[in-house]
């Protein structure tokens, strides 16, 4: 019989969407090692985000302002509810909390330098307050974390605001783990633990168990600091309506809301990718809580988790935030994951832009490390200059958009300036689908 199969069309191999190559690789890695993947950064999966919103701009029904010529103010005052000394920032973009230990001292210094030049604040992290950061930050927010590493009343009194961290977007409900290889003498001394051992950060505050305790804890911190400092409460984007409500009830001056795109120094990949909600789904719920309690703009809202530029900033403000915070974007601005180190990223089995094993302490850019030789590669003065440039660009971009919408202050941006490109984004952000006056769940509207 003649064989006709040679040369006949064949079915093209199709990769499974469920068992994709990255999924299969992770199964093989887990099977070989018996341990889950630990990494830094935020969620890498595709999520509804600010990309899915667009500004309408002004035509006849709205009157635009002249770009670059007419004033568009950017100032923001945080802590106007109870604090005797609220913080005034020149721009509504702040630097999110990142710990000394996870970051090098020069990296913290650069954050302080850049933020100060731009007229905004930086934030400490798990690990306490460093002289580099205090010395170079004109305005410094001191985080009060479950671990209380480095917490002392002297630093409480020399900060400009206190941020009580209840949760973070990358791991709401989870604690942290700074692995032993990053525990230098200095990090160990600041955290009161032996050198070289893993330093676990608890997932909950050791001396309070709920919102009523939080209220009394805030009272204690105010009494220790003479009611001067604004008290922020930071929550991960999990149940933003209820958590915002309870933070306000407990007496927060400012609520910091961190979505699941927000980064972490190190935690389980399965946690980063599967716990929490994207920031787009959280802002509207937090704003609704503020409005229901008649506290919108009296208690300020800072939004973080995947903020990458001026457009994201403007969209977050239009949805009701008072300011945004950046973490990952700030590290990239400093020079982390820069292609100039590509050969070294390759040697670590990764590539520039994807490096996230910050817990191993071998960051070629010298930013997320405690290795003295790697740290020498990073220039805090140049890093500060770059961060300042980036913050300026973010602000100019947001102002450009705001003027086009006819606004003389970034805070005058409003939900009516936005439309959504997808039904998902429309539903999450509570913004009409483009070309309609409808979004899912809004009574009295139709497609």
């Amino acid at each position: 019989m003649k064989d006709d199969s040679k040369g006949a069309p064949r079915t093209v191999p199709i990769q499974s969407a469920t068992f994709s190559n990255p999924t299969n690789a992770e199964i093989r890695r887990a099977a070989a090692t018996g341990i889950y993947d630990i990494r830094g950064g935020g969620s890498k999966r595709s999520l509804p985000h600010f990309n899915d919103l667009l500004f309408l701009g002004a035509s006849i029904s709205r009157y635009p302002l002249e770009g670059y010529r007419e004033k568009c103010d950017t100032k923001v005052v945080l802590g106007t509810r109870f604090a005797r000394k609220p913080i005034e920032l020149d721009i509504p973009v702040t630097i999110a909390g990142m710990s000394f230990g996870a970051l090098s001292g020069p990296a913290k210094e650069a954050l302080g330098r850049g933020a100060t030049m731009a007229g905004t604040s930086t934030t400490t992290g798990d690990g306490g307050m460093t002289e580099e950061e205090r010395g170079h930050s004109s305005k410094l927010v001191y985080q009060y974390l479950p671990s209380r590493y480095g917490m002392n009343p002297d630093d409480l009194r020399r900060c400009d605001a206190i941020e009580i961290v209840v949760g973070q977007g990358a791991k709401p409900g989870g604690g942290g783990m700074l692995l032993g290889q990053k525990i230098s003498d200095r990090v160990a001394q600041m955290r009161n633990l032996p050198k070289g051992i893993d330093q676990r950060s608890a997932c909950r505050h050791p001396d309070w168990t709920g919102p009523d305790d939080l209220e009394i804890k805030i009272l204690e911190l105010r009494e220790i600091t003479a009611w001067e400092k604004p008290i922020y409460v930071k929550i991960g984007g999990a149940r933003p309506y209820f958590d915002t409500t309870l933070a306000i009830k407990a007496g927060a001056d400012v609520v910091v809301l961190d979505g699941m795109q927000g980064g972490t120094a190190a935690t389980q990949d399965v946690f980063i990718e599967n716990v929490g909600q994207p920031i787009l789904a959280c802002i509207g719920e937090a704003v609704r809580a503020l409005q229901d309690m008649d506290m919108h703009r009296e208690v300020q809202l800072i939004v973080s988790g995947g903020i990458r530029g001026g457009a994201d900033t403007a969209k977050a403000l239009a949805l009701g935030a008072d300011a945004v915070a950046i973490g990952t974007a700030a590290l990239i601005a400093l020079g982390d994951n820069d292609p100039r180190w590509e050969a070294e990223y390759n040697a670590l089995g990764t590539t520039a832009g994807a490096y996230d094993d910050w817990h191993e302490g071998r960051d070629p850019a010298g930013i997320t490390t405690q290795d003295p030789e790697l740290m020498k590669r990073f220039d805090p003065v140049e890093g500060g200059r770059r961060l300042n440039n980036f913050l300026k660009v973010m602000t100019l971009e947001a102002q450009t958009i705001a003027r086009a919408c006819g606004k003389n202050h970034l805070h005058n941006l409003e939900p009516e300036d936005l439309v959504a490109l997808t039904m998902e984004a429309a539903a999450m952000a509570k913004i009409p689908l483009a070309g309609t006056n409808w979004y899912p769940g809004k009574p009295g509207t139709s497609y």
Partner: protein
Amino acid sequence: MQTFDLEAQGLRNLNAALQSQTKDTNQTAWEIVNAKGSHAIAVGLDAPIEVTVKGSTGYYCGGMNKQATIRVKGSAGPGVAENMMSGTVIIDGDASQYAGATANGGTLVIKGNASSRCGISMKGVDIIVHGNVGHMSAFMGQSGNMVVCGDAGDALGDSIYEARLFVRGTVKSLGADCIEKEMRPEHIEILTDLLERGESDAKPEEFKRYGSARKLYNFDIDNAY
């Protein structure tokens, strides 16, 4: 002696007055009356003064204390002496949960019993409890000493780092990575000093010592459960 009527003069005035004292002050003795369970009494002090609180306190009495000696002639609410840095806090009665939490230094003496989570995440403080402590005491204790003259509840010293625990009575259960350890002469010496400072007449030889097996010091998947 400075007498401060908390009910009449208010919490803010009290703490402002105490916090304004310096190391050279001649107002070294303070008595607080009408405490009535108020929260955040005598927090954030930083001078070698002696403060006596007549009556029981609410949350966080003596929080973040430095240098001062604070004595409560009653019982203390949750979080007494939390994050204390130095100085002494003495409770004549009982203490509620998380007494001495995250405290870095100084001495906390509880003449009665302490509730759950006594010394949680302790970071260098010395805690002497004349009575019993509740469950999860010294959880994640980093350093310092805890002396329990009575009994300890469940999960004592869970996930402990380098804190030393001395218990005279029974321990209901030990937490993860906490084990009984040999009582060597240097520990008797440490304990003798602690008991003396804690105004206890218990005998050091009656105590057992507990501490970390150090198996959780570096992440190991075999330790997960």
